[in-house]
Protein backbone atom coordinates (compact mmCIF):
# COMPACT_ATOMS: atom_id res chain seq x y z
CA UNK A 1 0.00 0.00 0.00
CA UNK A 2 1.49 3.27 -1.02
CA UNK A 3 0.12 5.14 1.94
CA UNK A 4 2.58 3.89 4.48
CA UNK A 5 5.88 5.38 3.62
CA UNK A 6 8.13 7.51 5.69
CA UNK A 7 8.86 10.76 3.92
CA UNK A 8 12.00 11.33 5.90
CA UNK A 9 13.39 7.82 5.55
CA UNK A 10 16.27 8.70 3.30
CA UNK A 11 17.22 11.41 5.67
CA UNK A 12 20.39 12.76 4.31
CA UNK A 13 19.82 12.32 0.63
CA UNK A 14 19.37 15.60 -1.20
CA UNK A 15 16.05 16.37 -2.82
CA UNK A 16 14.71 19.27 -4.75
CA UNK A 17 11.53 20.39 -6.33
CA UNK A 18 12.20 22.14 -9.57
CA UNK A 19 9.66 24.01 -11.62
CA UNK A 20 10.79 25.24 -14.98
CA UNK A 21 9.18 27.75 -17.31
CA UNK A 22 5.76 27.00 -15.98
CA UNK A 23 2.77 28.51 -17.70
CA UNK A 24 -0.63 28.62 -16.03
CA UNK A 25 -3.83 29.03 -17.91
CA UNK A 26 -7.19 29.35 -16.25
CA UNK A 27 -10.43 29.90 -18.07
CA UNK A 28 -8.50 30.38 -21.32
CA UNK A 29 -6.45 33.23 -19.93
CA UNK A 30 -2.74 33.07 -19.15
CA UNK A 31 -2.32 33.75 -15.46
CA UNK A 32 1.46 33.58 -15.40
CA UNK A 33 4.16 32.35 -17.70
CA UNK A 34 7.78 31.35 -17.53
CA UNK A 35 7.81 30.88 -13.81
CA UNK A 36 10.75 28.87 -12.55
CA UNK A 37 11.70 28.00 -9.02
CA UNK A 38 13.60 25.53 -6.92
CA UNK A 39 13.21 24.31 -3.36
CA UNK A 40 15.66 22.13 -1.49
CA UNK A 41 15.16 20.20 1.70
CA UNK A 42 15.13 22.39 4.80
CA UNK A 43 13.93 25.29 2.70
CA UNK A 44 10.87 27.51 2.75
CA UNK A 45 9.86 29.14 -0.49
CA UNK A 46 7.65 32.14 0.08
CA UNK A 47 5.27 33.01 -2.76
CA UNK A 48 4.17 36.58 -3.00
CA UNK A 49 2.37 38.68 -5.53
CA UNK A 50 -0.73 40.78 -5.81
CA UNK A 51 -4.22 39.30 -5.82
CA UNK A 52 -4.85 37.27 -8.93
CA UNK A 53 -1.18 36.80 -9.76
CA UNK A 54 -1.59 33.03 -9.55
CA UNK A 55 -0.22 31.98 -6.17
CA UNK A 56 -3.08 29.62 -5.41
CA UNK A 57 -3.00 28.35 -8.98
CA UNK A 58 0.71 27.56 -8.71
CA UNK A 59 0.24 25.66 -5.46
CA UNK A 60 -2.56 23.59 -6.99
CA UNK A 61 -0.36 22.96 -9.98
CA UNK A 62 2.44 21.64 -7.80
CA UNK A 63 -0.09 19.45 -6.00
CA UNK A 64 -1.00 17.96 -9.36
CA UNK A 65 -4.55 19.31 -9.40
CA UNK A 66 -4.00 21.65 -12.35
CA UNK A 67 -1.91 20.72 -15.34
CA UNK A 68 0.64 23.29 -16.41
CA UNK A 69 -0.03 24.62 -19.92
CA UNK A 70 3.71 24.43 -20.48
CA UNK A 71 6.86 23.79 -18.50
CA UNK A 72 7.93 20.99 -16.20
CA UNK A 73 7.64 20.15 -12.54
CA UNK A 74 9.90 17.58 -10.92
CA UNK A 75 10.73 16.23 -7.54
CA UNK A 76 14.30 15.03 -7.81
CA UNK A 77 15.34 12.46 -5.27
CA UNK A 78 11.81 11.92 -4.01
CA UNK A 79 9.91 8.69 -3.72
CA UNK A 80 9.97 7.36 -7.26
CA UNK A 81 6.61 5.61 -7.25
CA UNK A 82 4.67 8.54 -5.91
CA UNK A 83 3.42 11.72 -7.53
CA UNK A 84 4.37 15.00 -5.94
CA UNK A 85 0.79 15.33 -4.71
CA UNK A 86 1.06 12.05 -2.84
CA UNK A 87 4.08 13.35 -0.98
CA UNK A 88 2.54 16.73 -0.23
CA UNK A 89 -0.04 18.38 1.98
CA UNK A 90 -2.13 21.17 0.49
CA UNK A 91 -3.74 23.64 2.86
CA UNK A 92 -5.97 25.69 0.60
CA UNK A 93 -8.59 28.37 1.02
CA UNK A 94 -11.22 25.62 1.27
CA UNK A 95 -10.69 23.89 4.51
CA UNK A 96 -11.77 20.29 3.82
CA UNK A 97 -13.55 20.21 7.16
CA UNK A 98 -16.83 18.31 7.60
CA UNK A 99 -19.14 20.44 9.67
CA UNK A 100 -21.28 17.54 10.84
CA UNK A 101 -18.36 15.63 12.27
CA UNK A 102 -16.63 16.54 15.49
CA UNK A 103 -13.12 17.96 15.45
CA UNK A 104 -11.65 14.60 16.44
CA UNK A 105 -13.74 12.67 13.92
CA UNK A 106 -12.55 14.95 11.15
CA UNK A 107 -8.95 14.21 11.95
CA UNK A 108 -9.58 10.53 12.53
CA UNK A 109 -10.98 10.24 9.04
CA UNK A 110 -8.01 11.92 7.43
CA UNK A 111 -5.69 9.80 9.51
CA UNK A 112 -7.41 6.70 8.13
CA UNK A 113 -7.55 7.97 4.60
CA UNK A 114 -4.05 9.38 4.34
CA UNK A 115 -2.45 6.36 5.94
CA UNK A 116 -2.34 6.50 9.71
CA UNK A 117 -1.48 9.22 12.20
CA UNK A 118 -1.87 10.25 15.80
CA UNK A 119 -5.02 12.32 16.24
CA UNK A 120 -4.34 13.32 19.83
CA UNK A 121 -0.93 14.59 18.88
CA UNK A 122 -2.28 16.68 16.02
CA UNK A 123 -5.01 18.14 18.21
CA UNK A 124 -2.50 19.12 20.84
CA UNK A 125 -0.17 20.71 18.30
CA UNK A 126 -2.88 23.19 17.35
CA UNK A 127 -4.37 23.57 20.80
CA UNK A 128 -7.61 21.92 19.76
CA UNK A 129 -7.66 19.20 22.41
CA UNK A 130 -10.32 21.00 24.40
CA UNK A 131 -12.54 21.20 21.31
CA UNK A 132 -12.04 17.57 20.28
CA UNK A 133 -15.64 16.50 20.72
CA UNK A 134 -17.19 19.70 19.45
CA UNK A 135 -18.98 19.55 16.07
CA UNK A 136 -16.81 21.36 13.55
CA UNK A 137 -19.85 23.33 12.39
CA UNK A 138 -19.74 25.32 15.59
CA UNK A 139 -16.12 26.39 15.30
CA UNK A 140 -15.12 29.99 14.76
CA UNK A 141 -13.23 30.94 11.59
CA UNK A 142 -9.82 30.67 13.19
CA UNK A 143 -10.61 27.43 14.98
CA UNK A 144 -11.69 25.87 11.71
CA UNK A 145 -8.50 27.03 10.08
CA UNK A 146 -6.53 25.38 12.84
CA UNK A 147 -8.41 22.14 12.31
CA UNK A 148 -7.40 22.29 8.68
CA UNK A 149 -3.77 22.92 9.62
CA UNK A 150 -3.80 19.97 12.02
CA UNK A 151 -3.54 17.68 8.99
CA UNK A 152 0.07 18.79 8.60
CA UNK A 153 0.97 17.25 11.94
CA UNK A 154 -1.34 14.28 11.61
CA UNK A 155 0.42 12.56 8.74
CA UNK A 156 4.07 13.31 7.99
CA UNK A 157 4.64 14.39 4.43
CA UNK A 158 7.69 15.76 2.75
CA UNK A 159 6.25 18.87 1.15
CA UNK A 160 3.85 21.39 2.60
CA UNK A 161 1.91 23.59 0.21
CA UNK A 162 0.37 26.35 2.28
CA UNK A 163 -2.02 28.89 0.80
CA UNK A 164 -2.20 31.89 3.13
CA UNK A 165 -1.93 29.63 6.17
CA UNK A 166 -2.08 32.37 8.78
CA UNK A 167 -5.46 33.69 7.68
CA UNK A 168 -7.80 33.97 10.64
CA UNK A 169 -5.29 32.73 13.20
CA UNK A 170 -4.86 34.58 16.47
CA UNK A 171 -1.37 35.59 17.58
CA UNK A 172 -0.73 32.50 19.66
CA UNK A 173 -1.72 30.20 16.81
CA UNK A 174 0.42 32.13 14.35
CA UNK A 175 3.39 31.50 16.57
CA UNK A 176 2.45 27.85 16.93
CA UNK A 177 2.29 27.53 13.14
CA UNK A 178 5.67 29.21 12.75
CA UNK A 179 7.06 26.70 15.24
CA UNK A 180 5.57 23.80 13.30
CA UNK A 181 7.08 25.08 10.09
CA UNK A 182 10.50 25.55 11.65
CA UNK A 183 10.40 22.03 13.01
CA UNK A 184 9.29 20.58 9.68
CA UNK A 185 12.18 22.31 7.93
CA UNK A 186 14.61 21.15 10.56
CA UNK A 187 13.53 17.55 9.98
CA UNK A 188 14.33 17.94 6.31
CA UNK A 189 10.92 18.91 4.94
CA UNK A 190 10.14 21.49 2.30
CA UNK A 191 7.53 24.23 2.39
CA UNK A 192 6.03 26.43 -0.28
CA UNK A 193 3.80 29.07 1.22
CA UNK A 194 1.76 31.79 -0.46
CA UNK A 195 1.15 34.78 1.74
CA UNK A 196 0.48 38.49 1.89
CA UNK A 197 1.74 38.88 5.44
CA UNK A 198 4.83 37.87 7.38
CA UNK A 199 4.90 34.20 8.31
CA UNK A 200 7.02 34.56 11.41
CA UNK A 201 10.05 32.83 9.98
CA UNK A 202 12.60 33.84 7.42
CA UNK A 203 12.13 32.17 4.01
CA UNK A 204 15.19 30.69 2.36
CA UNK A 205 13.85 31.63 -1.04
CA UNK A 206 11.25 33.98 -2.40
CA UNK A 207 9.25 33.98 -5.56
CA UNK A 208 7.27 37.01 -6.59
CA UNK A 209 4.57 36.31 -9.15
CA UNK A 210 4.66 39.71 -10.64
CA UNK A 211 2.72 42.78 -11.23
CA UNK A 212 -0.91 41.82 -11.80
CA UNK A 213 -3.43 43.63 -9.63
Amino acid at each position, binding site marked *: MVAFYSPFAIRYSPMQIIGQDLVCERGGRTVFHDVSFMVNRHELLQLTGPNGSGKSSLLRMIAGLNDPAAGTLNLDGGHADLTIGQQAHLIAHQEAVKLALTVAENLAFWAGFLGGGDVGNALAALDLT*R*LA*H*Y*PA*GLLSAGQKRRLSLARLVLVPRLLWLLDEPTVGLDTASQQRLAGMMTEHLAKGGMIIAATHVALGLEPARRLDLGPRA
Partner: protein
Amino acid sequence: MQTLANPARFVGLANAVLPFVWVATIILFAIGLYGAIVTSPPDYQQGETVRIMFVHVPAAWLALMVYTVMALASAVAIVFRHPLADVAAKTAAPIGATFTFLALATGSLWGKPMWGAWWVWDARLTSMFVLFLLYIGYMAVWQAIDEPHRAALVARIVALVGFVNIPIVKFSVTWWNSLHQPASVFRIDGPTIAPSMLWPLLVMGLAYTLLFLALHLVSIRAEVTARKIRQMRLAEIGER
Protein backbone atom coordinates in the same frame (compact mmCIF):
# COMPACT_ATOMS: atom_id res chain seq x y z
CA MET B 1 -47.48 30.70 35.51
CA GLN B 2 -44.27 31.54 37.25
CA THR B 3 -44.37 28.18 39.03
CA LEU B 4 -44.59 26.29 35.80
CA ALA B 5 -42.07 28.53 34.13
CA ASN B 6 -39.36 26.96 36.17
CA PRO B 7 -38.56 23.56 34.65
CA ALA B 8 -37.29 22.28 37.99
CA ARG B 9 -40.60 23.13 39.65
CA PHE B 10 -42.38 21.46 36.79
CA VAL B 11 -40.48 18.26 37.35
CA GLY B 12 -41.50 18.37 40.99
CA LEU B 13 -45.11 18.90 40.05
CA ALA B 14 -45.00 16.10 37.50
CA ASN B 15 -43.56 13.74 40.07
CA ALA B 16 -46.37 14.56 42.45
CA VAL B 17 -49.20 14.22 39.93
CA LEU B 18 -48.03 11.23 37.92
CA PRO B 19 -48.98 8.39 40.29
CA PHE B 20 -52.58 9.59 40.40
CA VAL B 21 -52.74 9.93 36.64
CA TRP B 22 -51.45 6.41 36.15
CA VAL B 23 -53.95 4.94 38.59
CA ALA B 24 -56.84 6.83 36.99
CA THR B 25 -55.71 5.68 33.56
CA ILE B 26 -55.71 2.04 34.58
CA ILE B 27 -59.12 2.25 36.24
CA LEU B 28 -60.70 3.97 33.24
CA PHE B 29 -59.21 1.43 30.86
CA ALA B 30 -60.62 -1.35 33.00
CA ILE B 31 -64.10 0.14 32.99
CA GLY B 32 -63.96 1.08 29.34
CA LEU B 33 -62.78 -2.33 28.21
CA TYR B 34 -65.41 -4.03 30.36
CA GLY B 35 -68.08 -1.95 28.66
CA ALA B 36 -66.57 -2.51 25.26
CA ILE B 37 -66.16 -6.24 25.46
CA VAL B 38 -68.83 -7.41 27.87
CA THR B 39 -71.80 -5.10 28.09
CA SER B 40 -72.04 -3.55 24.62
CA PRO B 41 -73.94 -5.66 22.07
CA PRO B 42 -72.50 -6.84 18.76
CA ASP B 43 -73.64 -4.62 15.92
CA TYR B 44 -76.56 -5.88 13.85
CA GLN B 45 -74.61 -5.18 10.67
CA GLN B 46 -71.00 -5.53 11.66
CA GLY B 47 -71.16 -8.28 14.27
CA GLU B 48 -68.25 -8.60 16.66
CA THR B 49 -65.86 -6.57 14.51
CA VAL B 50 -67.59 -3.48 15.78
CA ARG B 51 -65.48 -3.82 18.89
CA ILE B 52 -62.47 -2.56 16.96
CA MET B 53 -64.26 0.76 17.27
CA PHE B 54 -63.33 1.06 20.92
CA VAL B 55 -59.66 1.02 20.02
CA HIS B 56 -59.88 2.81 16.72
CA VAL B 57 -62.06 5.80 17.44
CA PRO B 58 -60.31 7.05 20.59
CA ALA B 59 -56.95 6.58 18.90
CA ALA B 60 -58.15 8.72 16.01
CA TRP B 61 -59.46 11.37 18.37
CA LEU B 62 -56.17 11.46 20.22
CA ALA B 63 -54.22 11.67 16.98
CA LEU B 64 -56.03 14.87 16.19
CA MET B 65 -55.95 16.17 19.73
CA VAL B 66 -52.25 15.65 20.25
CA TYR B 67 -51.39 17.54 17.10
CA THR B 68 -53.65 20.32 18.28
CA VAL B 69 -51.81 20.32 21.59
CA MET B 70 -48.55 20.53 19.67
CA ALA B 71 -49.75 23.46 17.59
CA LEU B 72 -51.11 25.23 20.66
CA ALA B 73 -47.88 24.68 22.55
CA SER B 74 -45.97 26.06 19.56
CA ALA B 75 -48.18 29.13 19.47
CA VAL B 76 -47.63 29.62 23.19
CA ALA B 77 -43.91 29.26 22.62
CA ILE B 78 -43.98 31.98 19.98
CA VAL B 79 -46.13 34.40 21.96
CA PHE B 80 -44.83 33.88 25.48
CA ARG B 81 -41.36 32.48 24.71
CA HIS B 82 -41.92 29.91 27.36
CA PRO B 83 -39.13 27.31 27.24
CA LEU B 84 -41.37 24.53 28.51
CA ALA B 85 -43.83 25.06 25.66
CA ASP B 86 -41.28 23.88 23.10
CA VAL B 87 -40.49 20.86 25.22
CA ALA B 88 -44.19 20.09 25.48
CA ALA B 89 -44.62 20.27 21.72
CA LYS B 90 -41.52 18.24 21.01
CA THR B 91 -42.38 15.43 23.40
CA ALA B 92 -46.00 15.25 22.30
CA ALA B 93 -45.00 14.39 18.73
CA PRO B 94 -43.85 10.78 19.12
CA ILE B 95 -46.88 10.00 21.27
CA GLY B 96 -49.20 11.56 18.72
CA ALA B 97 -47.49 9.68 15.93
CA THR B 98 -48.09 6.45 17.83
CA PHE B 99 -51.78 7.18 18.24
CA THR B 100 -52.00 8.05 14.57
CA PHE B 101 -50.34 4.82 13.66
CA LEU B 102 -52.73 2.96 15.92
CA ALA B 103 -55.73 4.62 14.28
CA LEU B 104 -54.34 3.81 10.85
CA ALA B 105 -53.59 0.21 11.75
CA THR B 106 -56.90 -0.52 13.48
CA GLY B 107 -58.83 1.34 10.81
CA SER B 108 -57.06 -0.73 8.23
CA LEU B 109 -57.90 -3.94 10.14
CA TRP B 110 -61.48 -2.84 10.33
CA GLY B 111 -61.56 -1.82 6.68
CA LYS B 112 -60.82 -5.32 5.43
CA PRO B 113 -64.13 -6.84 6.66
CA MET B 114 -66.12 -3.62 6.11
CA TRP B 115 -64.96 -2.34 2.74
CA GLY B 116 -63.14 -5.40 1.49
CA ALA B 117 -59.76 -3.68 1.39
CA TRP B 118 -57.05 -2.85 3.86
CA TRP B 119 -56.69 0.56 2.43
CA VAL B 120 -58.55 2.89 0.09
CA TRP B 121 -57.44 6.32 -0.93
CA ASP B 122 -60.41 8.27 0.20
CA ALA B 123 -60.20 11.73 1.71
CA ARG B 124 -60.37 10.70 5.39
CA LEU B 125 -57.77 8.00 5.08
CA THR B 126 -55.46 10.09 2.95
CA SER B 127 -55.60 13.12 5.20
CA MET B 128 -55.02 10.90 8.21
CA PHE B 129 -51.99 9.43 6.49
CA VAL B 130 -50.78 12.93 5.78
CA LEU B 131 -51.14 13.68 9.47
CA PHE B 132 -48.85 10.76 10.16
CA LEU B 133 -46.31 12.18 7.72
CA LEU B 134 -46.53 15.56 9.39
CA TYR B 135 -45.73 14.01 12.74
CA ILE B 136 -42.72 12.32 11.17
CA GLY B 137 -41.62 15.53 9.49
CA TYR B 138 -41.95 17.44 12.74
CA MET B 139 -39.82 14.89 14.55
CA ALA B 140 -37.32 14.92 11.70
CA VAL B 141 -36.84 18.65 12.19
CA TRP B 142 -35.90 18.14 15.81
CA GLN B 143 -33.59 15.37 14.81
CA ALA B 144 -31.97 17.22 11.94
CA ILE B 145 -31.03 20.40 13.82
CA ASP B 146 -28.39 19.87 16.47
CA GLU B 147 -29.00 23.02 18.41
CA PRO B 148 -32.17 22.65 20.50
CA HIS B 149 -32.71 26.40 20.52
CA ARG B 150 -32.73 26.73 16.76
CA ALA B 151 -34.60 23.48 16.28
CA ALA B 152 -37.35 24.84 18.50
CA LEU B 153 -37.75 27.97 16.39
CA VAL B 154 -38.06 25.95 13.21
CA ALA B 155 -40.26 23.24 14.70
CA ARG B 156 -42.80 25.83 15.84
CA ILE B 157 -43.33 26.94 12.29
CA VAL B 158 -43.66 23.40 11.03
CA ALA B 159 -46.23 22.57 13.71
CA LEU B 160 -48.31 25.64 12.93
CA VAL B 161 -48.16 25.27 9.17
CA GLY B 162 -49.09 21.60 9.46
CA PHE B 163 -52.08 22.42 11.61
CA VAL B 164 -53.92 23.30 8.40
CA ASN B 165 -54.35 19.57 7.97
CA ILE B 166 -56.34 19.02 11.16
CA PRO B 167 -59.62 20.53 9.98
CA ILE B 168 -59.13 18.69 6.72
CA VAL B 169 -58.98 15.36 8.56
CA LYS B 170 -61.91 16.27 10.76
CA PHE B 171 -64.22 17.48 8.01
CA SER B 172 -63.02 15.36 5.15
CA VAL B 173 -65.98 13.04 5.59
CA THR B 174 -68.37 15.97 5.37
CA TRP B 175 -66.71 17.76 2.49
CA TRP B 176 -66.12 14.81 0.24
CA ASN B 177 -68.32 11.77 0.03
CA SER B 178 -66.27 9.13 1.61
CA LEU B 179 -66.42 5.46 2.37
CA HIS B 180 -65.63 6.33 5.94
CA GLN B 181 -68.23 6.83 8.67
CA PRO B 182 -69.33 10.44 9.13
CA ALA B 183 -69.06 11.92 12.59
CA SER B 184 -71.53 10.28 14.94
CA VAL B 185 -70.41 11.40 18.37
CA PHE B 186 -69.17 14.96 18.12
CA ARG B 187 -71.82 16.54 15.94
CA ILE B 188 -73.94 19.61 16.35
CA ASP B 189 -77.24 17.75 16.61
CA GLY B 190 -76.01 15.30 19.24
CA PRO B 191 -74.64 11.77 19.02
CA THR B 192 -76.38 9.25 16.78
CA ILE B 193 -74.96 6.17 18.35
CA ALA B 194 -76.65 3.69 20.69
CA PRO B 195 -76.07 4.59 24.38
CA SER B 196 -74.87 1.07 25.18
CA MET B 197 -72.01 1.65 22.78
CA LEU B 198 -71.65 5.32 23.48
CA TRP B 199 -70.65 5.18 27.12
CA PRO B 200 -67.81 2.66 26.78
CA LEU B 201 -66.56 4.65 23.83
CA LEU B 202 -66.50 7.84 25.82
CA VAL B 203 -64.83 6.14 28.78
CA MET B 204 -62.21 4.75 26.45
CA GLY B 205 -61.72 8.23 25.04
CA LEU B 206 -61.10 9.53 28.52
CA ALA B 207 -58.75 6.66 29.31
CA TYR B 208 -56.73 7.38 26.16
CA THR B 209 -56.57 11.05 27.10
CA LEU B 210 -55.23 10.26 30.53
CA LEU B 211 -52.77 7.83 29.04
CA PHE B 212 -51.53 10.60 26.81
CA LEU B 213 -51.26 12.92 29.78
CA ALA B 214 -49.21 10.39 31.73
CA LEU B 215 -46.89 9.60 28.82
CA HIS B 216 -46.52 13.27 28.02
CA LEU B 217 -45.56 14.17 31.58
CA VAL B 218 -43.03 11.37 31.67
CA SER B 219 -41.38 12.41 28.45
CA ILE B 220 -41.36 16.10 29.35
CA ARG B 221 -39.62 15.16 32.55
CA ALA B 222 -37.08 13.08 30.67
CA GLU B 223 -36.47 15.86 28.16
CA VAL B 224 -35.93 18.45 30.88
CA THR B 225 -33.37 16.19 32.49
CA ALA B 226 -31.66 15.48 29.18
CA ARG B 227 -31.36 19.19 28.51
CA LYS B 228 -29.88 19.79 31.89
CA ILE B 229 -27.25 17.16 31.18
CA ARG B 230 -26.48 18.64 27.78
CA GLN B 231 -26.18 22.08 29.30
CA MET B 232 -23.72 20.78 31.85
CA ARG B 233 -21.65 19.04 29.22
CA LEU B 234 -21.51 22.13 27.06
CA ALA B 235 -20.58 24.28 30.03
CA GLU B 236 -17.78 21.86 30.68
CA ILE B 237 -16.45 22.29 27.15
CA GLY B 238 -16.94 26.01 27.38
CA GLU B 239 -14.92 26.15 30.58
CA ARG B 240 -11.71 27.65 29.37
